[in-house]
């Protein structure tokens, strides 16, 4: 693939010279990043490289000091969190973030994109469409048999899947996953990789991950962050042999 070709295409997400500073410390420094439709992009980098902060910036959790994030023609830096979600950006947190007091079914149902206003939530009815969609997603995330289990008693891996499922049910066009296989068994990792490969048929995915084996399994392209900047970008093969990357990782 040629760089020029990329520029001429419409990216689903284009980040231009994004900077955020916390009391003078630039966690993300003049960063630019472009993601294609239906691409799985993995971001790697040492601790403190600014990976999670980039996701926070995209989904509106942190406000940028300067720069722009364009998603599907919308300027995300000016939008509030729920508007960004409505635009089609879904985000999974580093630690599984699910509603432990509710059942799997209820977890998924709450994420179903209907009745999102106060009034809508008060008059929301659990109709056939909702039930079918919940069951469909539950099947994808291997939790069909646990629909009425309290989420609190799921295994760690199952919780991770549940959170992915909660995103899938919204049919986002960009899915951002922060360490989706952390704490999973080998078998669970394989299943997760499989899951991600299935779902990207319809959406773009940004993944932050440390597990290199897993990264190789899923990544279309890899971006390496270091000190808030892009250090290297390209296929897994290319990045692996980039001397700067090697130095950062080994020198760390």
């Amino acid at each position, binding site marked *: 693939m040629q760089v020029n070709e990329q520029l001429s295409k419409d990216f689903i997400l284009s980040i231009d010279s994004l900077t955020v500073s916390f009391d003078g410390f630039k*966690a993300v420094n003049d960063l630019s990043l472009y993601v294609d439709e239906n691409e799985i992009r993995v971001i790697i980098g040492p601790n403190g490289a600014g990976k999670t902060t980039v996701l926070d910036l995209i989904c509106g*959790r942190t406000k940028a000091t300067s720069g722009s994030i364009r998603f599907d023609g919308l300027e995300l830096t000016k939008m509030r969190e729920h508007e960004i979600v409505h635009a089609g950006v879904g985000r999974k947190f580093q630690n599984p973030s699910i509603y432990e007091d509710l059942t799997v079914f209820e977890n998924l149902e709450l994420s179903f994109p209907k009745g999102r206003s106060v009034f809508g939530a008060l008059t929301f009815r659990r109709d056939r469409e909702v039930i079918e969609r919940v069951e469909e997603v539950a099947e994808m995330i291997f939790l069909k048999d646990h629909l009425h289990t309290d989420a609190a008693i799921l295994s760690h891996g199952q919780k991770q899947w549940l959170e992915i499922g909660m995103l899938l049910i919204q049919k986002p066009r960009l899915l951002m996953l922060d360490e989706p296989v952390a704490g999973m068994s080998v078998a669970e990792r394989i299943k997760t990789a499989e899951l991600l490969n299935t779902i990207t048929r319809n959406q773009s995915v940004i993944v932050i991950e440390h597990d290199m084996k897993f990264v190789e399994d899923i990544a279309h392209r890899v971006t390496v962050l270091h000190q808030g900047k892009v250090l290297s970008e390209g296929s897994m093969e290319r990045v692996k042999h980039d001397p700067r990357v090697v130095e950062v990782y080994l020198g760390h």
Partner: protein
Amino acid sequence: MIGDYTYSEFFSILAMQGFAGLILFSVFVLMALGLAIIFGQMGVINMAHGEFMILGAYVTYLCSTLVTTYLPAFFPYYFFLAMALAFVASFSLGVLVEWVLIRHLYRRPLDTLLATWGLSLVLQQFYRSVFGAREVGVTLPDWMMGSVSVSETIEVPLNGLFVMALTMIIALGVYFIMYRSSWGKRVRAVVQNRVMAGAVGINTKMVDRMTFGLGCGIAGIAGSAFTMIGSTGPTAGQLYIVDTFLVVVFGGAGSLIGTIASAFTISQAQSTMEFFLSGSMAKVLTLLTVVGILMLRPQGLFSLNIRR
């Protein structure tokens, strides 16, 4: 306003009001420092803070009574002893309370609020049972009352000076303890990362207990000092609680400098408004302004822009 006064009078107004504001400022700092440590550093809402202050006041009262009876010669100086004892008493009670109640409630700040409110009721009734429902009068040595006249119209109350000096000493003391001593380093380490601090060998439980005790102890000293300007009764502590919390929250929890800055701002605003308006309206306007600003800037005056 200036139309009513001559220039020299106007100058006196400025000077005396500035001084009244400074006294109020000292009072606020004294009230709020203990709470700022407990709330800011530990995240515990201590609604019984006022009752810890009143404990200090009652200790001072006991001291004054005992010294008058048994050691009248010592009377002019008893106040220093009283303050020390007030600290010890409040500190001890604080440590006890931490051990019995608070340590079970870390990470449940709203529950500490309810439990300490309960504690405040118990303490109030305790004071009432022991000292009676009436306010008690604390007799002060003569040298602490009265004033120094600077000019014909400007007079500086001695107890105001005393409170200001005390505030300065305590604020400096707290600064040294929290930011210059190894113990303070440990406290801050625990605040920032409890697990890590524990892992490097800090006895986090002991740090919690001593921090809580210190906050309460300072409240005790404040209560002791307030016998000079306020009343000592079973329910007097409740009068302070809203003001105190507002000062701490307005300053930005976790920041001692913020607490001091906020005490300064609120006290100057209040004493200025009290001069130009009548008392009740000044109070309402001050509180409204503080609440209004907090609504616009919930993190308070001073707070770090931290990444979440």
